[in-house]
């Protein structure tokens, strides 16, 4: 199964840098794997950790958070908040049994299309190595939990 496992990755991108970088990668015909689905936000500081948890619990195998390089945030210092939130979020997810490396923070400026494409490629391979996260579906909690129930008391 792991041989043809295609990771599903959600990428949160910043309007001012990494989204432009992804755009630039496209314009420059730079290839990156289609496993990542990019969502544009105005800033990495907009990223509520809940978005990451929703992605992971609804079927994503990994989440990539991208923002402007430290010191270059369009809104002055919000990317530092994104950095701190990501660190704290990874610690929390680790306690829940999610490998913290399934969440990755990457800084990419609007000029770094090639770099972002390369980072996406690396992350997809890292997640492919880890295999599916396969979190029980939140949409039908009762059924997914009951199905998994094998009581051996």
């Amino acid at each position, binding site marked *: 199964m792991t041989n043809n496992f295609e990771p599903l990755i959600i990428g949160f991108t910043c309007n001012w840098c990494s989204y432009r970088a992804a755009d630039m990668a496209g314009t420059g015909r730079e290839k990156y794997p289609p496993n990542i689905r990019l969502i544009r936000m105005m800033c990495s500081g907009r990223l509520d950790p*809940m978005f990451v948890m929703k992605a992971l619990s609804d079927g994503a195998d990994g989440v990539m958070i991208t923002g402007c390089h430290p010191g270059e945030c369009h809104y002055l210092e919000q990317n*530092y*908040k994104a950095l*701190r939130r990501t660190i704290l979020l990874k610690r*929390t*997810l680790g306690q829940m049994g999610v490998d913290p490396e399934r969440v990755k923070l990457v800084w990419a400026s609007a000029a770094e299309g090639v770099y972002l494409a390369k980072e996406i490629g690396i992350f997809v391979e890292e997640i492919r190595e880890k295999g599916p996260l396969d979190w029980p579906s939140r949409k039908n909690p009762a059924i997914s939990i009951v199905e998994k129930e094998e009581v*051996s*008391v």
Partner: protein
Amino acid sequence: MTGKPKFAMYWAASCGGCEIATLNMHEKILDFDANFKVVFWPVAMDAKYKDVEAMEDGEILVTLFNGGIRNSENEHIAKLLRKKSQILVSFGSCAIEGGIPGLANLTEMHHFFDTVYTTVSTDNTNNHRPQVEYDMPEGKITIPEFKPVLQTLDQVVDVDYYMPGCPPETHQIAAVIDVLISVVKGEAVLPPKGSFLGVGNSTVCDECGRTRNLKKITEFKRIQDIKKIDPDLCLIEQGILCNGPATASGCESKCPSVNAPCAGCYGPAIGVKDFGARMITAIASVIDAEDPDEIERIMDGIIDPAGTFYRFGLANSMMRTGKASWNGK
């Protein structure tokens, strides 16, 4: 309907504090008794499950259900009371969010049994474990089956109203009982289905009397490591993790007013979908560091992030459980 409307209260995986808070309403209980007939309330009176099973569907007007769904008995009674009740209220943190018992969703199921049946304080040399079924000469006997994951009431059955708190404040319960009595008398109408009752529109911080300044946290401390807590300054500013920013108001900021950080028992405030995520956002925002190593050092002071930020809300959070528990072993 003939006679007084019927009332039931049940406890599933909970501590019984909700019932105490309810009984704590003193003389209001007389008002309550004048308007309702209690048909099923294991803590307060004797009743059998088969009495409930014998009732007509919808015969009970209102049921307050506290506690999460931990075993097959909880699940059975939740489904039974849903069928027999017109209004089912998810009552208290455990029923709504899993509460403290829901934290067990972070561990594998066999750890519970190890803790209960094999720790040093237990005299169990043959390592006996409870069996769900056992054949006795007199016939087969059964006990409820333990579930690997604790679920909230509304993950198992349809719920009409929610009343948060650990336990819900007695004055809030009394106010809700008053509304119910007026509804029964035809003087008021019920709020829309799915409403949260007995809870404020804001956060605990909003009700808290402490002074708040620009927060710049460079160190987190546990409350027992602080020699003297400033009684007038925001606890977070003093480096104490306080769940006030994400917690719904309604308790009049009880804990912070006595130098204890908010635990978050009233659950997520309006607009907060995931309690822990909101706390991560809030706490990470006020840490005064930009260097990754320094951030890691400061965060080492947060001993147990999942247990702190999801103290009451794990079973109802986005992730719902830790990965360890749902393998069912």
